[in-house]
């Protein structure tokens, strides 16, 4: 059996008598029997769901705080409730994805700035406390009959605003750290997108929060919620577009297969949701449908990003080709520098050929 992979790379006609081989379109990289170099992430879809629920929790808390400060009780109530639900879902899916779920508290053994997961655990812990308190306060307020406050009700209702504001203050970190979580890996299409992913995730989170807002909004709340939806959707669309077209070969996993279809669906749902929010905002039904579209768009986009990264670990092409290009660029740069200064003679380099020179 000959060497595996996509066939030997063409070597500038160095080998004679192989004319037939040159007729075959050759791939421009070599590999070990075409096997993957990287391990695919062991993370299941739980993590993709968490990307969505974490962002939803964050933007819901921001929506609730803004609604609280601008005296929009529907937005405050819906935001706090949705934040609580998303927080519980987030915790559930994060623990479920562990190989040893009973050891989830081991995450709190250390605080490690080099580990986005450790940083995120502490962000989620801080956020969870505040958002949970805000939700409990909201529940206490809902159970109050008339103006008769119980002994516990008064402090509980009172703590709602500071707790809600604290949750909203931590929320942007919660919504964006997940981008660093994915990017700080060897997964080619995640790492390469580290400049775009935080903006994409922030936008996707905002759009999903605006979705909750659209579902809950009364006619008077429509203005700010619409603006929020447009801002979020614009960031989400621009981010996704950038990830899908600006990463060269590493954009390919986001354009093809399931990831490609998911991101396409996300884009269409976002556009539909925004159109619905802007044109059909006067109708409660259309408003709610538009909100649901934005939520579904965010979910599809997160799954698309997740899947695209996973795909990029399965083909050695996404490891070898970009790394070879990087090496070639570095070599060209060094050659140019050597040429300019003319201090390096060819013999200087000959003895210490690095592994890069074949």
């Amino acid at each position, binding site marked *: *059996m000959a060497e595996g992979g996509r066939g030997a790379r063409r070597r500038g006609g160095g080998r004679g008598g192989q004319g037939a081989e040159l007729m075959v379109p050759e791939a421009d990289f070599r590999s070990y029997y075409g*096997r993957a170099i990287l391990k695919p992430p062991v993370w299941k879809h739980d993590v993709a769901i968490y990307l969505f629920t974490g962002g939803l929790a964050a933007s819901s808390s921001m929506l609730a705080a803004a609604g609280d400060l601008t005296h929009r009780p529907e937005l405050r109530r819906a935001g706090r409730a949705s934040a609580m639900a998303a927080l519980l879902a987030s915790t559930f899916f994060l623990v479920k994805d562990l190989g040893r779920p009973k050891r989830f508290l081991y*995450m709190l053994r250390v605080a490690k700035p080099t580990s986005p997961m450790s940083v995120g655990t502490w962000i989620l812990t801080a956020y969870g406390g505040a958002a949970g308190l805000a939700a409990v306060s909201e529940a206490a307020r809902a159970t109050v009959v008339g103006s008769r406050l119980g002994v516990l009700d008064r402090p509980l209702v009172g703590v709602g605003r500071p707790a809600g504001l604290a949750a909203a203050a931590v929320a*942007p970190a919660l919504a964006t750290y997940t981008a660093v979580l994915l990017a700080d890996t060897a997964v080619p299409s995640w*790492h390469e997108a580290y400049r775009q992913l*935080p903006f994409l995730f922030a936008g996707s989170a905002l759009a999903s929060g605006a979705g909750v807002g659209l579902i809950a909004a009364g006619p008077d709340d429509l203005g700010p919620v619409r603006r*929020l939806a447009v801002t979020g959707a614009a960031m989400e669309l621009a981010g996704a577009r950038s990830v899908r077209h600006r990463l060269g070969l590493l954009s390919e996993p986001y354009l093809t297969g399931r990831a490609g279809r998911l991101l396409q669906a996300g884009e269409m749902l976002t556009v539909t949701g925004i159109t619905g929010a802007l044109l059909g905002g006067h109708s409660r039904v259309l408003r709610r449908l538009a909100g649901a579209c934005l939520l579904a768009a965010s979910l599809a986009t997160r799954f698309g990003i997740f899947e695209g990264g996973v795909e990029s670990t399965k083909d050695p092409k996404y490891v070898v080709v970009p790394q070879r290009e990087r090496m070639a660029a570095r070599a060209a740069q060094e050659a140019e520098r050597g040429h300019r200064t003319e201090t390096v003679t060819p013999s200087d380099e000959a003895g210490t050929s690095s592994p890069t020179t*074949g």
Partner: protein
Amino acid sequence: MVSRNSLSGPLDPTPDAGYVDPPARKGFFTDTSVCIGCKACEVACKEWNEVPSDGLNLLGLSFDNTGSLGADSWRHVAFIEQSRPVGAQSFEGPPTGPSGTSFLGMPGTALPGASQDGRTDLRWLMASDVCKHCTHAACLDVCPTGSLFRTEFGTVVVQEDICNGCGYCVSACPYGVIDRRETDGRAWKCTLCYDRLKGDAEPACAKACPTDSIQFGDLDELRERADRRVAALQGAGVTEARLYGHDESDGVGGDGAFFLLLDEPEVYGLPPDPVVTTKDLPDMWRHAGLAALAMAAGVVAAFAGARR
């Protein structure tokens, strides 16, 4: 002990991890030019470390039925069969053996690969792969529980009683070494026989290697030995001999386990230019911070002036 090169660049990782007056950094030099593919290293590793079976697989990839490193394979011997027509070798340097009849590439009646004087135009590359014990180990950097740690020998080890199986290390490793054991839920990889090192014994694989393809020792000394070996091979006409993972200025700050290869790294299933992902971590946080600010600004802008 955070230094300027804590995330990337040349570094002695052991003092950086906080050890005072540690022993010399230990490592492997795997000289694949003398590997005979016996897999004694794989067996010795499994025996000593009680690594469970990774299944009875027939992969159809030459003599390789292990496939890759993983939770249950801490040494992996790769087998690469290459067609290297004798007459064409001169383009990459002189042939290593006595010269034979030029191979014209004509169809014949002999067995494939056999030339008239009994020499073949095939070569077999064999290489025993292992965890690289990087200077800048991404698995260790991203571990959120502190389960992965830097030992006093400069190696990287998983504490299995701490690991909660989050799987972050699996995605972080640029070499695809560490993996989660499905039956167990925790991450596993080569420990460079931490227990044996503590007892002044060499790791099981190096002990078992019959040709000294796997050499264990102080990393500084191994690097010098490897330089001499490459020079000797190149002097003997093996111009394709090159080192992999020995360079402190590479993307992972140099490997604690490095290799002498006879072809490009990707042919052995190794990434040609791995870079520790945490090298870009400060820039990632910067972008996340900007995005977080944009998000907050978006909410403020949406609600500003809309007080009712």
